[in-house]
Structure formats: structure tokens, C-alpha cells
């Protein structure tokens, strides 16, 4: 009897140990598959957010379509075209203090002239060298990579700062999944007169 109990106990332990070992062996693959699934979910969620939050409105150059101006999706999210050289903006007139270029990618106002960024992962001209942390810091602080110059109007950083980290990570994951496009966007142009 005593011998049977011991045998049963050892058998249960063996099964438990085997199950544990099996789980451990499978776990890395499961984790990897989980991470891939999470990334896929993030990319899909990010694509939805980018579509619905209007990122294409300014970061994709507009062209004249059959029904009027529309985003040129062949240049999706590539920012202000480097070959679209603009003359200085007209001076403000009365209550009209701002101007927009025909591509809807360059904006003039009291802050100077701002050009929308290339959001594709090109390492030299886009977000290719950015990390998720830099992207989150930019959205949270309204400063370039969380440390540099202010992100300029009309980028709605005040609104985007309200996104939770998971949403911002999703947007970043989607942008990083895009094909990289080389397009060096000009640096902002300062206003003629210093503010103070």
C-alpha cells in the first residue's frame, strides 16, 4: 500500500514536471507569437487612428481631383514635397493671419512657415531613426523628440497628448510599417519679426 502511494505520488510529480517542461519549451514561441499578434493589432489600430484622426489631411500632399482638392494617396504621409519650392507667403491682411499652400502641407502664420513632416520610416528624411519613446515624448510634450523645438501649428499636439500610450504606440507601429519614402522636408521658417 505504502509502495503504491509512493508510486502514485511520483507519477503525479513526473506528469507535473513534464507538463511544466513542455510549457517552458513552448513558452518562447508563444511569447513571440503573442508579440507578433500584438504588433499586428497595433498596426491595424494605428492605421484606423491615422485614417480617422485626419493625419493625411496635412501629411499627405493634396492634388486637384475630379471633385476638387484631395489627398494624393500615392504620396501618403510623405509630408511636404521637397521639390515643391514655395515663394515667401503673402503678408497677413486684416483678420486673415494665415495662409496654406495648395498641397495643404505648408502653413504660414504668426509662427512663421511650417512644413508637414515625412512620417514614413525613411532613415534620413522620415521617422526611420525614431524610437517609440521619442514618438511618445513628442506627442506628450509638443516638442520634437520630447526635447527639441516646439512642434508647430497646425499640428494638433494638444489633442494628441490626450491619447493613451497604447494608441500612440499603435500610430507609431503603423507609420513604421509603411514603405520608406525619401523626401526631405524643409526646416520651419522663422517669422520675420521676433515675438518679443
Amino acid at each position, binding site marked *: 500500500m505504502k509502495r503504491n502511494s509512493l508510486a502514485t505520488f511520483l507519477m503525479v510529480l513526473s506528469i*507535473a514536471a513534464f507538463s511544466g517542461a513542455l510549457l517552458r519549451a513552448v513558452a518562447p514561441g508563444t511569447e513571440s507569437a503573442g508579440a507578433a499578434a500584438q504588433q499586428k493589432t497595433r498596426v491595424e489600430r494605428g492605421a484606423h487612428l491615422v485614417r480617422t484622426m485626419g493625419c493625411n489631411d496635412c501629411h499627405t500632399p493634396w492634388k486637384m481631383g475630379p471633385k476638387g482638392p484631395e489627398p494624393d494617396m500615392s504620396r501618403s504621409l510623405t509630408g511636404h514635397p521637397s521639390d515643391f519650392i514655395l515663394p515667401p507667403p503673402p503678408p497677413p491682411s486684416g483678420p486673415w493671419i494665415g495662409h496654406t499652400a495648395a498641397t495643404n502641407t505648408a502653413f504660414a502664420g504668426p*509662427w512663421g512657415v511650417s512644413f508637414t513632416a515625412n512620417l514614413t520610416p525613411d532613415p534620413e528624411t522620415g521617422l526611420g531613426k525614431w524610437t517609440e*519613446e521619442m514618438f511618445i515624448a513628442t506627442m506628450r510634450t509638443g*516638442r520634437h523628440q520630447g526635447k*527639441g*523645438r*516646439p512642434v508647430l501649428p497646425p499640428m494638433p499636439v494638444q489633442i494628441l497628448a490626450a491619447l493613451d500610450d497604447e494608441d500612440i504606440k499603435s500610430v507609431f507601429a503603423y507609420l513604421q510599417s509603411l514603405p520608406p519614402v525619401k523626401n*526631405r522636408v524643409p*526646416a520651419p*521658417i522663422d517669422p520675420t519679426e521676433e515675438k518679443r
Partner: protein
Amino acid sequence: MNRWVRAAVAALAVAWLIAIGTAMQAAVPPAAEDHQAPQRLSETGLYAAGRPGVIDPANRAFAPQYPLWSDGAAKTRWIYLPPGTAIDASDNADWAFPVGTRFWKEFSFNGKKVETRFIWHASADRWIFATYLWTEGERDALLAPGEGVPGAVEIALGKRHDIPGSNDCKACHGAKRPGPLGFNALQLSTDRDPNAIHGEPLAPGMITLATLVSERLLSPAVPELVNNPPRIHASSPRTRAVLGYFASNCGTCHNRSGETTFDGPSLKHSDLSDGDKVAADLLGFATTWQVPGQPDGASRMLSITAPDASAMLVRMQSRRPSSQMPPLGTTLRDDAAIDAITKWIAMDLSKR
């Protein structure tokens, strides 16, 4: 029972206990702490109890040899280390401060106190950054709002100094390794640079590396910091002074921490000992920021062929938000530094 069976059972039991213990540890969240910056500077521990305006002797004054440019403010700084604690100096590039450490920096313009900034290592995973705005009569200073106070005080004709918001504090003091910026081995070295731009004299009693070592406030003790104090080694005094200026004004972001995409020569205080090499690396380094008027891809951090088109100089001369460097914290450009760097390019770099 066979001794091998007994050993196997014992091993399985231990493994089981470890697994359960690990699972339980992961399930218990860390204790939440709710530290807040006090509403008044007088409540931060800067002053001796019952003696308004008198610095508590537990708070030690210090003066970094290469001060940060802050619109020309006169600044006074103090550190408090809890009794019995020491700074973890095992990584000399990034000292780790004990919980309870506090720093203060008082800013005055034209002899009048304007703001005092406060950094407090409140718990193992939390630093608190706050700014206090001095009241009229300088009786106390009140906690500034989180968004800061733009244009708080006029410091020159038509120019006003901003009190930074909490986001601005974090922008400079780091997200990955938060903490003070001007309290490190180079800044506290006893081999002090006599040509430091805006250098301040050491007052009696101020903390230096020698103090930290002799009072066992560094752990490990690192006696070589006293025997061979940190210094920017350079063939010209101007190179040493200019790189020291870069350490405090640029190196916080322009380094290899990975917090920004900057991939040029690191200007962090701990990466400047070979000053001539850093200067050579800076010279001709292509910047992603394009200098106005320069052809695409032709912009350089420093240029001896077109010194006025050196990106560093152009951005230091600008005080416009989209191009100025450093990007925050100042309204006035630092003319003394611009002059020193212009001379450095013309008289030192051009001879290389």
C-alpha cells in the same frame, strides 16, 4: 526510498516553490507613493527650521565649473543628501543619487530673486521637478503652475524670462535617467577651468569632488577622482573652455543616450576628456538641420570655410522657437559664448 528518487522529489519540490514564489511576486504591485511638491519653497527643507531665509546647514552649496546659460541669471545651488547615504558613483558617467536627495537652484536677475527650481528624488522610481516663483519682498516663493509662467519677469528691454513648465523640466532632466545635470565629476572637478565661459568662483565650503571623496559621499570611494581629477584635455585653453560650455549647454541632448536621433559626437560631460578629438569630430559633421541658404546636405555643425554658416553658431544666435539652441530655457542669446566660439573657429579650428 532510493536516494535518487528522494533527490528528484526534493528538486521538483524546490522548483515548484520557486515557481509559486515568482508568480506571487509578479502579482503583487509595488507600493504606491504619493509625494507632491510642497506649495511653498519654505516647505521644501531649503531653510533652517524657524529661521526664514537662512539656508539649513545640511544643504551644501556647489558651483559647477561650466555653468548653464540661463539668460544671464545669477545662480546659487544647493544639494541635500540624507544622512548616512552616498551617491552611487559606480558608473562615473551617470551618478545615481540616493532616495531623499534634493537639489535647489535660485535664479536672480539684477539682484532680485525670481525663481528657485527644486529637484527631489522622492522615491526609488520617482523624481519631482518643481519651480517656485518668488513673491514681492522675497519673503517666500510659491509653487509655479505646471505649465510654467511665460514672460514672468523683464530681464532686458522688451525681453522677458520664462518660468519653465513641468514638461520643460522633464525635457532637459531626462525621461530615461532623470536627475540633476550640473552635479557630476567634470563639473565638480578640482582641476577647474580658469577660462570657463561665465565661470563662477568657488566660495568657501562649496562641495567639490575632493569634498565628496573625503566625506565618503561617493560609493565606491573613487580616490582617482581626486588624484587625477576629470579635465577636458585639449591643446588649446579655448578648446577646453568651449567644450566645457558644450557639456553643460548641449551635452544633455547631444549624446548617445538614445533619447534623440542625434548621432554626432557626444558632448556629454563624461565623453569629453579627449578634447582635441571631439573638436575634430565636430568639425565638418553634417547636420540634418539645414542652415538657411546652404545647399541641401551641405550644412555642418562647425565650418572653417564658412564659419558664419556653422549650424551650432547659427542656432545659438537664433532666439526663435523653431531654430534656437538650446531649444528651451532662454530668451536671450549668449553673446559671450557666441563670441568665444567664433574666435575658437577662427583661431584654433582653422589651424588644424
